């Protein structure tokens, strides 16, 4: 039986797992954005927050994903086997790139523009919403893009804690020494990562074009 015939026989399963995979990535990235963007903006206003928050997110990033999943399992409420544990770990991983890019994006805004904004009589909130966030948007967006692409890869590992997704094919393939099964999980997952990257890149380009270049 060829690999293609093998895929043809299992395509509904593969499609279902792909969908599961996408859902996990979307949920965790959206949650990551909702937490990290406001937190990043808060850091630009309260610099004392920067070190502990970015430090925490940085430490998480250094924990190998399999170990993080393992660490979360015994925890009450957030732990256990299943997609909930996986999502929590994935959100934690998404934090750092988005946080860092949000903070950098805002800090990179041309001081002359900020001076003009202040001199015109903007309140701090107006300066944030009318000037800093729009100008930081390309940077924030590329943080989201990184988090998403990394997330696609991480979700495959989340199958180890029973989260589902394409990783379950990979782990099954490994356990059964069946390379066809392994590739049936790995190839769609790789394609997914490439598609996510390209799609978000296109969205980013349109966003930048519609808002004008962020340079003077």
């Amino acid at each position: 039986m060829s690999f293609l015939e093998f895929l043809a026989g299992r395509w509904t399963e593969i499609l279902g797992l792909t969908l599961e995979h996408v859902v996990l990535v979307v949920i965790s990235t959206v949650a990551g954005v909702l937490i990290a963007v406001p937190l990043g903006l808060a850091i630009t206003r309260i610099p004392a927050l920067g070190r502990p928050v970015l430090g925490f997110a940085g430490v998480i990033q250094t924990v190998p994903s399999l170990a993080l999943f393992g660490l979360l399992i015994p925890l009450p409420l957030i732990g256990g086997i299943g997609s909930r544990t996986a999502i929590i770990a994935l959100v934690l991983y998404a934090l750092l790139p988005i946080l860092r890019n949000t903070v950098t994006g805002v800090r990179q805004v041309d001081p002359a523009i900020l001076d003009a904004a202040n001199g015109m009589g903007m309140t701090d909130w107006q300066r944030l919403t009318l000037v800093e966030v729009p100008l930081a948007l390309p940077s924030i967006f590329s943080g989201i893009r990184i988090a998403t692409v990394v997330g696609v890869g991480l979700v495959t590992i989340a199958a180890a804690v029973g989260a589902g997704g394409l990783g379950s094919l990979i782990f099954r393939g490994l356990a059964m020494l069946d390379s066809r099964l392994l590739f049936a999980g790995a190839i769609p997952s790789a394609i997914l990562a490439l598609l996510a990257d390209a799609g978000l890149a296109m969205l980013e380009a349109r966003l930048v074009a519609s808002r004008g270049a962020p340079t003077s």
Partner: protein
Amino acid sequence: MTGVAISFREVTKSFDEKLVLDRVSLDVSPGEVLVLLGRSGCGKTTLLRLVNRLVDADAGGVYVGGREVADWDPVELRRGIGYAIQGVGLLPHLSVGENVSLVPRLLGWNPDRRRERAAEMLRLVGLDPREHGGRRPDQLSGGQRQRVGVARALAADPQALLMDEPFGAVDPIGRRSLQEEFRSLSQELGKTVLFVTHDVTEAFRLADRIAVVADGGIRQVGTPGEIRDSPADALVRGLIEGAA
């Protein structure tokens, strides 16, 4: 609306222990263009920024229309004073028209009135609202951007204008025509203008009066003619002759 008086009374300011302004007093009359002339680092920009409270004095007082700026809410104070700086500080993600109507927007004007005002201001500084109003700042030449900066500073009909080397980033020919237009514009509008420059020619071209600033103090205040004919000391003479 005519201009408002601006006065500095014994103003002192230090940054990190370094004395930048040392008991400076200066009166700007309503409707006059007063140019603060001096080399970089002399304190002239700090003097300007005291007026709209981008900087607060350590001691002494700054008065706008007779009221001490420390008593104002900075945001409200700034909305009533036009501000234009070198490099202009146009918001690159907004159109030229939106940039010009920013302060009116902050003041809560409705969109129709804002658009109308932006068009009026662009025409005032010699730009065509239909041709330029919808563009992004980076699609304009340096000189056009400076014009937009002036239009933006004027948009909410402020009683005073603060300008910090607003024509600094333009080529000499473009600068000359900007200066001439600004001169006639300021005479026509009758606003009080405090204008910072290190360019002696620019100072003489624009000013009703010039205040020569050096080492954190004012060396001489007078009309361009007075400064030229009887410089107060060797430093003032050196500064203006250096340009000749």
